[in-house]
């Protein structure tokens, strides 16, 4: 370690300005190695030392990040999950939590073979009797190490691991208590996830959420209704004694084990059926789907009845229309009748007026200067008027009205027409002929 002399006199910064670095030489560097390349970068880019150090530090950080620790290690238990395991009787290893002993209490049935091997190595390094004795623990206290070894043996054998996983009740997730308040998906998701580990068919469908489509929900429940489980209960078997002792006893135990296994299996199956039934009953989606179905049904019914309804409506409409039509028609007829009468009366009045006009033509025009013949004129005028048809009457009346002075000529003309047509004999119309 370097040391420095103590400061005896008061020296601040005292630079010997007269001193110079002894002459320097210019030599080639060997252009090899990373330090040279760093030097080259520094020179070419004109980096200062602090910039260079910063860049180096950044690179180092990058390197460290890239070479980070084994991701598996992070999943292992840092400390023993269950301290009581340390004092567990090695002969009772079956009752110990083997995953916890391996430091895999977080992974359990999810642990891969590689992770098991790694975890085992880690535990062995820590709990090997040699290591433990070095730490002051007696060499004979190797029960936990034996359990670790048993756990490794069990978990690395495919069949044995299957049997152990079947009876790994710690990994079971209890369904939510009835009557308590819970979110369906939060509470049941893990339950189904843990049950799915026994599925022969993989992957098992997910519970999903409120947005899951009906088809998926239905296939989820049909999967669980027809669940094919590999769960076995051999791990809980009573130990079969060596066949050398007593063959009958051995067979008896075996039979007993088998019966117990079958019983457990049946119980487990019925448990699962009940579980699925309950989940289905509680599933808000199922309720939602049922309601939707009901609504749909109603809607369908409504649609189905639409034809008849339209028909009735059309009929009513037609009836109403007919009725309205009849009414209007009646009203029209009535009014037409009245009109006719009126016009008739008007025509009659007009005729009367015209007749009067023509009849009075002589009188009005001072009998055309022939006042002496007034009686004849009036009589003959009466004849003419009576012989006129309606048209002639209107025509003549209009002419007379328009041109009263010419009335004699007009009347003569009409008298002539009347004589010519033979309506009246000329004798009767002596004045006008």
């Amino acid at each position, binding site marked *: *370690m*370097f*040391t*420095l*002399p*103590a*400061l*005896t006199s*008061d*020296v*601040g*910064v*005292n*630079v*010997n*300005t007269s*001193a*110079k*670095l*002894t*002459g*320097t*030489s*210019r*030599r*080639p*560097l*060997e*252009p*090899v*190695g*990373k*330090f*040279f*390349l760093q*030097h*080259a*970068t*520094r*020179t*070419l880019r004109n980096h200062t*030392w602090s910039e260079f150090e910063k860049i180096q530090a950044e690179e180092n950080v990058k390197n460290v990040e890239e070479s980070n620790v084994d991701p598996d290690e992070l999943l292992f238990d840092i400390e023993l999950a269950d301290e009581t395991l340390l004092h567990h009787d090695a002969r009772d290893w079956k009752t110990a939590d083997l995953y916890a002993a391996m430091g895999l209490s977080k992974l359990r049935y999810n642990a891969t073979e590689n992770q098991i091997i790694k975890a085992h190595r880690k535990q062995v390094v820590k709990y090997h009797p040699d290591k433990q004795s070095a730490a002051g623990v007696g060499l004979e206290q190797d029960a936990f190490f034996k359990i670790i070894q048993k756990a490794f043996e069990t978990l690395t054998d495919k069949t044995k691991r299957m049997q152990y996983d079947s009876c790994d009740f710690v990994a079971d997730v209890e369904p939510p208590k009835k009557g308590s308040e819970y979110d369906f998906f939060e509470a049941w998701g893990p339950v189904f996830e843990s049950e799915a580990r026994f599925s022969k068919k993989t992957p098992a469908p997910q519970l999903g959420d409120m947005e899951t489509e009906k088809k998926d929900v239905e296939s989820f429940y049909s999967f669980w209704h027809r669940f094919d489980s590999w769960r076995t209960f051999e791990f809980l078997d009573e130990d079969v004694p060596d066949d050398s002792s007593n063959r009958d006893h051995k067979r008896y135990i075996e039979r007993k084990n088998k019966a117990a296994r079958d019983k457990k299996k049946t119980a487990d199956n019925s448990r699962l059926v009940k579980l699925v039934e309950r989940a289905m009953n509680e599933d808000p989606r199922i309720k939602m789907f049922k309601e939707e179905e009901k609504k749909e049904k109603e809607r369908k019914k409504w649609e189905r009845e639409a034809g008849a309804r339209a028909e009735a409506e059309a009929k009513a409409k037609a009836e109403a229309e007919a009725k309205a039509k009849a009414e209007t028609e009646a009203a029209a007829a009535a009014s037409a009748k009245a009109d006719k009468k009126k016009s008739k009366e008007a025509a009659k009045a007009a005729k009367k007026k015209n007749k009067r006009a023509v009849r009075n033509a002589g009188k009005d025009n001072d009998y055309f200067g022939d006042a002496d013949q007034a009686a004849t004129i009036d009589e003959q005028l009466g004849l003419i008027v009576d012989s006129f048809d309606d048209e002639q009457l209107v025509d003549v009346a209009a002419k007379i009205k328009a041109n009263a002075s010419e009335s004699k000529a007009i009347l003569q003309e009409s008298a002539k027409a009347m004589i010519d047509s033979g309506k009246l004999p000329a004798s009767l119309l002596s004045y006008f002929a």
Partner: protein
Amino acid sequence: MSSPIIGIHFGNTSSSIAYINPKNDVDVIANPDGERAIPSVLSYVGEDEYHGGQALQQLIRNPKNTIVNFRDFIGLPFAECDVSKCANGAPAIELDGKVGFVISRGEGKEEQLTVDEVVSRHLNRLKLAAEDYIGQTIAKVVITIPTNFSADQKLALSEAASKVGLQIVQFINEPSAALLAHVEQFNIEKDCNIVVADFGGVRSDAAVIAIRNGMFTILSTVHDLNLGGDNLDTELVEYFAKDFEKKTKSNPRNNARSMAKLRSNAILTKKTLSNATSATISIDSLADGFDYHTSINRMRYELTANKVFSQFVSFINTVIEKTGLDNLDIDAVLLAGGVSFTPKLTSNLEFLFPESVEILGPQNKDASNYPNELSASGAALQARLIADYDDDELKDAAQPVVVNTLHLQKAIGFVDGNGEFVPVLLPETSYPVQKKITFSNAQGDLLLGVYEGKSYVEEKTLEPEQREEDEEDSEEWSDEEPETVREKHYKTTAKLMELGVKDVKKGLEVTFNVNKDSVLRVTARDLKTGAVTKGEL
């Protein structure tokens, strides 16, 4: 990953190829015959071309068509080449002013090969071996060359390589490559001076390399083109020939083929003796129908070749003298090349150097077990480094402004609590440089005196008893004479500055910084409070 860049060590006697395997380790690639040190030999029998160990065997039966020791000739005019090296194989002749070989390809057909063509073919075989091993095509290589290769030679080598589809991305010097491989494997972090001695088959090279902050500077180099493992073989062959003549009254020296047989077996014996203390040699019908069988122990061999071994040692001395350094200035001797396997070489060097010098040979646990592969490994490591850079960046990095840097002549350091000078920046440190030292126990008011220092060697005469604690040595030198012990010390030559650092709480970090304008800046920073005291020269 695109195709990897491989490192090639191309030697006169043997070549090695290395690459960085996907596990990020250096792999020295064996050729299909399983040789990791692939003999640089090409041999032609009729239409067939043999390479490596297979070609080497042809040296006995078919020496006229077997090309050996051609590396040094590349890019050189014929007049400058010492063609006597090829005496054992195909004779070298002048072709277009260069060295060439005339090879018979059967049925009276002859092929004239210039050395460039031979090198191309050799590199191609190496390339094929590497591709075979890696399973990817290879287009880029880093190749090692001796420090005395001229620009013309580099160019010729580049051209020979490009002819077989190899782009040489960088030439690196053999000693630097070897040192790089060593440093990579055995982390040398402190600054030191290292002699890299490469004893090959036909030539020896040594260089003194200063490592300063991880950067290498070659201080000096020496080459001996006539010293190498072959000299050991010659001694051994001579010994066997004498022995054979004595036993059978028949002289194998008269017959080139006998000599070739003897030499090839002597080489095997020599290699065995590196690992075992005795070895046998047996040759059927060595000369005049006589078989030869004998065994030799390591001691006999070492005595026989003692002259050559002392040449090796003095060769290393030459390079240190040439640098102007003392043995005490050397921190280690790194042995590379095939001869380094010989235990005698290490023990001779241990005898020569003071204990402070580490002999980094295969016998040392802190050194590679395969000194002949160091160079190739270094090339591969360099290849890994430059794989991240594109060609332009590399070209920039090779600019003289980057490569040629200023180096300090004298050490800069401070005086510690005992009044001793402690060097921080050693001589030959290239700058700009920055170095930090931490005084973790510093406390109170302190004086930081910055000086230039110089090393000197102090000789002391010790009484024999004091050596006895070193049992190994006491056996060797059981003489009663007083022992002279040399020690390296520093003395201050010029005071540069004094910094009074006041009220240090706990820990002080001192930064020595020399920028490119030769300005020395010393900064003392209190680790606890962050208070800074600065001085600039």
